[in-house]
């Protein structure tokens, strides 16, 4: 077989192989720093004694007319994750297969032991997003008890928010979150911003939420391999 023929054959390979080789990033082995940014952020709230207090329910109207209610969170419990995981950035193909039409950015998470797909952590626009494909939840925030629930297309949504104490300039930060489950898969979304912009922060979260619910549970066939 001559090299010229082989060279031409290589050039005729599908673009997906080229794209994969261009986008590949090696897996990163890590112990538990999943969602470390949020954990650090939450720790800061606690460490600096940021003030939590009971506030009235916040709401946003979803496109279907339902009202999503965010309950004020009275505490910031976190869940200890002690997992060996492998992570890598997902390619555009993989992201589109998982979250069609949603422009998701982020990385996949696999079990460090059996290399099974555990989920995804990233963003939908400004909205931070964590998808847990199995019962192993990748977010380390425990959400239970005080949150308000609502529904969109028959899917139950639990939602809440934090509000920080005013900073030296008198500005507060609000963090809205929402979570729902479809076929054993858990979706967690979170968006933060200045309190003065809270309406846009909430509506961005709601928009991402609706897109995910509309797409439904993710098919296992779309789960990428490590």
């Amino acid at each position, binding site marked *: 077989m001559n090299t010229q*023929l082989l060279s031409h054959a290589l050039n005729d390979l599908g673009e997906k192989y080229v794209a994969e080789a261009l986008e590949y990033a090696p897996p990163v082995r890590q112990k538990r720093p999943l969602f470390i940014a949020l954990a650090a952020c939450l720790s800061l709230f606690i460490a600096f004694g940021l003030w939590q207090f009971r506030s009235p329910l916040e709401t946003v109207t979803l496109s279907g007319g339902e009202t999503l209610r965010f309950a004020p969170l009275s505490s910031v419990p976190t869940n200890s994750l002690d997992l060996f995981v492998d992570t890598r950035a997902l390619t555009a193909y993989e992201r589109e297969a998982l979250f069609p039409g949603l422009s998701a950015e982020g990385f996949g998470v696999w079990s460090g032991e059996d290399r099974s797909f555990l989920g995804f952590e990233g963003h939908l626009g400004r909205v931070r997003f964590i998808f847990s494909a199995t019962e192993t939840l990748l977010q380390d925030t425990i959400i239970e008890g005080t949150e308000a629930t609502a529904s969109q297309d028959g899917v139950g949504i639990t939602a809440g928010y934090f509000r920080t104490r005013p900073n030296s300039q008198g500005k507060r930060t609000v963090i809205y979150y929402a979570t729902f489950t479809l076929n054993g898969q858990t979706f967690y979304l979170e968006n933060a911003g200045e309190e003065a912009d809270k309406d846009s922060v909430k509506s961005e979260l709601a928009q991402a939420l609706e897109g995910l619910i509309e797409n439904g549970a993710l098919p296992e066939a779309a789960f990428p391999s490590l």
Partner: protein
Amino acid sequence: MEDKQIVELFWQRSEEALAALDHKYGKLCRALASRWAKDPQDAEECVNDAYLALWEAIPPARPEPLIAYLCKVIRNLSLKRREHDEAMKRDSRCDASLEELAEALPAGTDVWSEVAAKELARALERFLDTLSRQDRVIFMRRYWFGDPYQEIAGRVGLSEKTVSVRLTRLRKRLRQYFIQEGILS
């Protein structure tokens, strides 16, 4: 700028498309062309030719992903140019009898090669699909992009030695696969 926006500029026949394309992917394109072209000047010309090829292809094409499409065009142009240069050199050494024989042969030889290359490409794709993602990337970076071992090692997070061993195994596997498929005897 997002790839979709660049493609849209091509569709609008805006020359900003070329500037945006070069700004975003120029460095990568020149690096790829320099792997296959014989000198930097040739590489630069290949990149420019590739931009022109995109200008002519879009519209009606809407390549997705844009960079993979562009890389294919650059590699193709670079190889064609090199083959042409090598053929010119060969011609200079050819004796008259071979030239006569070449003229007497039908132009079907090239057609046959093209068909064979396409069939071989499909077989290669089937082979690539049997590999792990990492092995597939190592194979493509070495034989499609022409990257040196050291560069591949850095890209996939392995040592240079491991990449070398992996490629040796992959070549053996490929040969075995081609034998199974009846491509090699």
